[in-house]
């Protein structure tokens, strides 16, 4: 692929990460459907503070995100992130170690590592959708 196409995607994914990432952070912080809008709810159990609920409580977050729309949203965000991060690494490393052989090694290494993380991330998203979790 021509480098201009690769870089066009790099800039586009950068912008999309900003949009999707902001949406993700803002939504869970301000719009999550807990009645009192409390981020973390603690209770005095056995003389100590224990987290029992709130907008950012694990099961609340999981309940919000466990639908196909959010799953697709995260899958897209994951795709953008993987491309942007590993293409970025490829660029940095290619500048540090220029040369056709080293660049081939760098490109394929980034492709394989990126693919492994992408599969692991997708697996997590699917688990979340099907009721499992981390």
């Amino acid at each position: 692929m021509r480098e201009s196409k690769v870089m066009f995607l790099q800039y586009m994914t950068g912008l999309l990460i900003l949009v999707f990432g902001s949406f993700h952070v803002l939504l869970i912080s301000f719009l999550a459907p807990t009645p009192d809008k409390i981020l973390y709810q603690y209770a005095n159990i056995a003389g100590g503070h224990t987290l029992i609920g709130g907008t950012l409580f694990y099961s609340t977050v999981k309940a919000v995100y466990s639908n196909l729309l959010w799953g697709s949203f995260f899958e897209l965000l994951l795709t953008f992130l993987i491309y942007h991060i590993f293409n970025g690494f490829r660029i940095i490393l290619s500048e540090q170690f220029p040369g056709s052989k080293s660049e081939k090694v760098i490109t394929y290494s980034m492709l394989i590592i990126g693919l492994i993380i992408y599969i692991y991330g997708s697996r997590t998203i699917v688990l979340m959708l099907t009721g499992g979790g981390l």
Partner: protein
Amino acid sequence: MDVALKGFGEVVKTVTLRVRRYDPEKESLPTYMEYKVPVQKGMTVLDGILYVKEHIDPSLSARYSCRMGICGSCGMIIDGKERLACQTQILELKKDLIKVDPMGNYKIVKDLVPDLSKLFRNHEAVKPYIVREEEKPTAEYLQTPEQREKYGMFTDCILCGACLSACPTSAADELYLGPQALAQAFRYISDSRDTGFYERLNVLDSKHGVWRCHFSGACSEVCPKGVDPALGIQLLKEVLTKNIFVKYKQVPSPVGPERKSVVETS
């Protein structure tokens, strides 16, 4: 005793030139030598270096030619910044100790003389001339003042190599085309008489072409002729992005010993 140079005013003060000395054929590491130079009004750093050569140490090497900021031969790092030695007044630096280094990102021939072959090779790679499809022009190619304005600033480049010396990407990536070549590529691509855009794409759109500029702007900061190579590179990115889906006939890019990767990837 200080010797006053002819053609200049009175000796105003004495400055120390701290010059980097290095002969790669004889020494493994560079060293710095200090020379005391009597400064007269109007003396440039190049005059100071020539004073050292004539009166203190004839073994000091520097490259120069026109002495009037036109030929671009005397580029060096003076007081931490790439400048033309013939255009830099010693008194204007307002320093008693002036550090003089050869330009960076080049191999050193000796002392203050850099090997500019990389600069010229990269320059050649972008075809820095008007490319026309017609073989025999039948008349003058006309151009309006507005059409010339598009690339006017970039014609001021004197190939001194200061921009490539200051470029942080060139410092890391030996194969990067560099700001001089890329700005010249924009100069010819934006010329209404030129039809060689697709011929240059092989090199410009390569892994070490226009996209490796991270816009630090150091090139524009140091250009002694006021050219803005960083702007040229950004405009070039715009042109390439507009042609992102255009298919073109690939033409082999010029071969050079330091451009192997670019040829292989194109």
